[in-house]
């Protein structure tokens, strides 16, 4: 599972950066164990590292997580059981698993979703443990280029998503909109606003 391996490195870089931002070893590890949402963790951490408070950090992670709302809604028809059972199964949604389990026709393979998430959870936890404990021995994480891991990972997911003309244009549009909003909106908001580009799906049939 390449995503599990990359997740290990990504999570390691998270823990190293978290320690630098004032998290204890236990706090860096517990975050990955109980939050288990890479982009939300990085969003929250970037606010804390930038000197922001708890409300701002929470808002950033919540906005970053908003896509899980959309992903969960898309997944809903593919999950059996009552509300509690479906809510519990929804916890298995992480970016890579969601994309892999997506059959591309509006339905999802839920066992593929769980099976892809399980190894990622394991390596995500391990990565943060290693990063938190041994991170200080590595020195300055920026000097090592660890901040290039996270965007490369999301770029891989993006390229996998850009299957046809419509998805390509939506990808380009979302990126440009987010970039345009960077100077005028608080961190986290440009990404949320970019999701509005998906509304072109109302007007256009997939190519």
């Amino acid at each position, binding site marked *: 599972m390449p995503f599990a*391996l990359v997740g290990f490195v990504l999570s390691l870089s998270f823990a190293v950066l978290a320690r630098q931002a004032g998290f204890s070893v236990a706090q860096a590890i517990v975050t990955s164990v109980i939050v288990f949402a890479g982009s939300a963790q990085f969003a929250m951490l970037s606010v804390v590292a930038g000197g922001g408070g708890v409300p701002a950090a929470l808002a950033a992670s919540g906005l970053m997580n908003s896509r899980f709302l959309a992903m969960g*809604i898309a997944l*809903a028809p593919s999950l059996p059981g009552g509300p509690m059972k479906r809510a519990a*199964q929804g916890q298995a949604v992480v970016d890579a698993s969601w994309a892999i389990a997506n059959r591309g026709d509006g339905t999802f393979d839920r066992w593929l979703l769980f099976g892809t998430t399980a190894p990622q959870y394991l390596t995500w936890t391990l990565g943060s443990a290693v990063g938190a404990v041994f991170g200080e021995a590595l020195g300055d994480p920026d000097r090592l280029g660890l901040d290039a891991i996270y965007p490369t990972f999301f770029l891989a997911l*993006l390229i996998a998503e850009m299957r046809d003309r419509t998805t390509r244009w939506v990808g380009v549009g979302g990126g440009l909109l987010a970039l345009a909003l*960077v100077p005028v909106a608080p961190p986290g908001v440009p990404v949320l606003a970019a999701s509005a580009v998906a509304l072109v799906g109302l007007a256009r049939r997939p190519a």
Partner: protein
Amino acid sequence: MTLSSGQIWVLIIACAVLTAVIKGVGPVLLGGRVLPGWFDRVVVLMAPALLSALVVTAVLADGCTWSVGAHTVGVAVAGVMLWRRLPLVLCVAVAVVLTALLRMWW
């Protein structure tokens, strides 16, 4: 402002609860119902729009300003490699090494 240890614990726990609620709401909200076609088309487009925004803000923005750094170059090169269908692990390695090397010289 540096957060105290207690504040960081509050943040971690609140973030975990928030994430669990957001992940749980979607499946419960619409479970078992058949969705209209326009809904599927919007949701299918949600991922490319958000992922693109995440990448762009990570490599071309620093807080509220546009910025270009060594990691912009590293990730761009990795992006071309990904587009050429080279393995993800190799692409991540190249992004990291290239970024680190550029920072040594800049």
